[in-house]
């Protein structure tokens, strides 16, 4: 999923002017001018006891296209569905994996066979028990081409999934079975240590077959809704709100404190206004450009942390100038002053990226040697490589870099191209295109140099490394390196997680040596949270579920 510049997250160019202005207008009235008479946001006093009203008001980036877990395509929908359904595994307070409908599980020695034992007390919101058949039904529905699930590949690690999704095998051949109502068995193509994360995803959550068969597509309407998570849908108004209420039949309902959660689909700027007015308690995002200003005004209510995504550029390996010239690829890499991008352009919000994979637990990030060099040394080496590639002041590199239209992007690309001009003399033209237009061009392998940002589907290096695997769908630069592919294949066959990581680390080293991509910045999750909202923790997937949240008594909003 999750091409990070998902178009639904952003309103059109027409609103961009508005966006820029509000930033300005708020700043002008607020903390903009030093020494100005700043009308402070009224103070909030937080008590120790629980608030009487436990209604959460959260913003999401945009209106989900659907609440059908099989058909999910956008991140906002996933955030809502995380509260509505529960898979075999679930998300803990800190975003880690905890037992969900499955109370326990075992994995075979070769890492390919998993057996899950369901808790007998798990119930649907209509009182029916949650059984293994509900999972099998949901997974078969996901990969059945007739369902039209755009992200059916999410189940690719399961035996037979892709053959079914491509219409080459019957649905019943999916490598899953239910020996009894409380046992689910999954057979995988290769050891997949991140399976437990996949099981918490919407695509693998169970579905209530009778409801779907009775109501068809209409089953997601509030009046027909049946789910097995902590909350159930009560009201959906497109582009206004999704209201969910606590599900009293959820097996762990006693630990769920919110009685109701309202999600408001709002663009980044509107979220800031709503939050400051006290109308929402949790903003899913704020504009990059307002980071320092918001911090000066809201202090600890501004919350940021690492997010499993990278902003990078990739090059077209099918033709000149990059296919034949590793020197040129490395020259562009070395000539970028990433710390300036991170500190000045992004004002400290996003950390600099010298390599593809963001920091992950257990994985040793492979930084290239030059990451620790001084600017002078790095620039000198970049110029040497640039000259070795055959370019000079008289014969400069003249190309364009394509990126999806977005105000935040523009600042970064203006800075990047300026650095290339100053440090190398390369004339790179920043060129923005609407997301869908760029995507179409990428599929045709037209752009030579382009933004290739990516948000990981699960916290594992492979979700990033696959971008450069031969034949992978989103390998838009058509990068192909047999040695690299061999390392990924070795990792896929390796049941021991530690040894698997060693293979992946070698693969990352290889990417760095080849200059396959030009990493720029890692992503950061960014939220605004009221001080009286507790029971949440930032996590690298930025999946912060409502079930652990609660509100404290407070004065002021």
């Amino acid at each position, binding site marked *: 999923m999750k091409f990070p510049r998902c178009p639904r997250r952003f309103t059109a160019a027409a609103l961009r002017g508005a966006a820029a202005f509000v930033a300005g207008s708020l700043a002008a*009235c607020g903390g903009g001018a030093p020494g100005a008479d700043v009308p402070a946001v009224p103070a909030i006093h937080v008590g120790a006891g629980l608030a009487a009203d436990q209604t959460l008001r959260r913003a999401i980036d945009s209106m989900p296209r659907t609440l059908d877990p099989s*058909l999910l395509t956008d991140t906002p929908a996933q955030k809502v569905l995380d509260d509505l359904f529960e898979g075999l595994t679930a998300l803990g307070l800190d975003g880690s994996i905890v037992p969900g409908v499955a109370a326990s599980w075992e994995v075979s020695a070769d890492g390919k066979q998993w057996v899950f034992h369901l808790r007998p007390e798990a119930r649907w919101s209509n009182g029916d028990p949650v059984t293994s058949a509900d999972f099998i039904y949901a997974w078969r529905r996901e990969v059945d*081409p007739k*369902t039209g699930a755009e992200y059916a590949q999410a189940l690719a690690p399961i035996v037979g999934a892709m053959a079914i999704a491509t219409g080459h095998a019957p649905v019943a051949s999916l490598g899953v079975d239910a020996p009894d109502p409380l046992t689910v068995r999954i057979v995988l193509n290769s050891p997949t240590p991140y399976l437990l994360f996949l099981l918490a995803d919407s695509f693998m959550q169970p579905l209530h077959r009778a409801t779907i068969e009775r109501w068809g*597509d*209409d089953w997601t309407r509030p009046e027909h809704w049946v789910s097995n998570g902590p909350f159930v849908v009560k009201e959906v108004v*497109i582009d206004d709100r999704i209201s969910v209420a606590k599900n009293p039949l959820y097996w762990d309902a006693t630990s769920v404190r919110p009685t109701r959660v309202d999600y408001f689909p709002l663009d980044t700027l509107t979220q800031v206004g709503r939050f400051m007015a006290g*109308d929402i308690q949790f903003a899913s995002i704020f504009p990059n450009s307002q980071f320092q200003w918001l911090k000066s005004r809201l202090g600890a209510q501004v919350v940021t942390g690492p997010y499993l995504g990278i902003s990078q550029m990739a090059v077209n390996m099918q033709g000149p100038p990059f296919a034949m010239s590793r020197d040129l690829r490395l020259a562009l890499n070395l000539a970028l002053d990433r710390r300036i991008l991170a500190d000045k352009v992004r004002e400290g919000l996003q950390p600099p990226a010298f390599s593809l994979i963001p920091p992950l637990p257990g994985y040793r990030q492979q930084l290239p040697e030059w990451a620790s060099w001084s600017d002078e040394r790095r620039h000198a080496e970049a110029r040497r490589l640039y000259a070795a590639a055959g370019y000079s002041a008289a014969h400069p590199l003249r190309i364009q870099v394509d990126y999806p239209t977005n105000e935040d992007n523009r600042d970064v690309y203006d800075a990047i191209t300026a650095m290339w001009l100053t440090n190398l003399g390369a004339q790179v033209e920043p060129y923005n295109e609407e*997301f869908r237009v760029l995507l179409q061009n990428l599929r045709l392998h037209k752009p030579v140099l382009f933004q290739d940002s990516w948000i990981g589907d699960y916290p594992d290096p492979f979700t990033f490394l696959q971008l450069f695997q031969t034949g992978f769908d989103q390998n838009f630069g058509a990068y192909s390196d047999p040695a690299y592919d061999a390392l990924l294949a070795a990792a896929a066959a390796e049941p021991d997680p530690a040894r698997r990581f060693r293979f992946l680390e070698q693969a990352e080293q290889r990417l760095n040596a080849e200059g396959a991509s030009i990493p720029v910045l890692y992503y950061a999750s960014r939220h605004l949270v009221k001080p009286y909202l507790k029971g949440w923790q930032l996590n690298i997937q930025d999946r912060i579920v409502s079930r652990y949240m609660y509100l404290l008594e407070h004065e002021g*909003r």
Partner: protein
Amino acid sequence: MLKFLAGRLALAVPTMLVIATLAFGLLHATPGGPFDTAKRMPPEIQRSIEAKYHLDEPVWRQYLRYLGDLAHGDFGPSFQYRNTSVNELIRSGLPVDAVIGSLALLAAMLVGGCVGTVAALRRNRWLDHGPMFLAVLGISIPVFVTGPLLILVFAVQLHWLPSGDWRWGEIRYLLLPVTALALPYVAYVARVARGAAIEVFASPFILTARAKGLPTRTVVLRHALRPVLLPLVSFLGPAFASVLTGSIVIESVFGLPGIGKYFLTGAINRDYTLVVGITVLYGALIIAFNLLADLCYAWLDPRVRLQS
């Protein structure tokens, strides 16, 4: 009169056809489709989705199918929101825009009309210059400035009113968006009314009325009001169609579920049916309200004769 109506309605049908065709053609010619995502789906699944929405058919057949449905008042299913029809979206969004838009225009006519008339009566005095200066400001400051400023003052600082959202029947949710939307219209109406009033006050029939010794009140209300309203009526027609189909900025700033926002996200996401549907609706409303404005014209101005 009837002949006039029949003529206009006969002309409306081909106009609507042209609008629908252009919108349909332009949208289908735009690069990228409604189901393009960064992750490419297996071709079988793509075919299954395309068959569901008839995207697998040649464009001319999709066009004929669309026109056929349109003739029955069916705008088709939304591509963006699964299991939601464009008719449903319009049914839920249009009333929101209708309430906010009518209130804003009503405020514009009452406030703007009065201010403009008074300014004309007190021409070149402070009661003229003051309001007209404000009117110029009102016209030149766009709503994406006034909207956030209103939110900043009344929601963030004072906590008097909600910063957005929509609840049927709750007036406090209406005040800020209606005010923000009304301000430029108030200003515009005030200026137009002033200009018209000055012209009317100088015309012979008003001089006659004054010469008869009628009090100013009677002169204004009985004789001058109708001709002053004339230019406003021709402005009101398209303005009403425009506010009904939503102010994209107002809806975004205040987070209102109106059709302007549907239109915007629909265009970004290539929701063909939704965008064409709202375009056709907008065209129909413009035609209808222009016709209505012409009828009002005839009623207000005895010099106008309706001819097809």
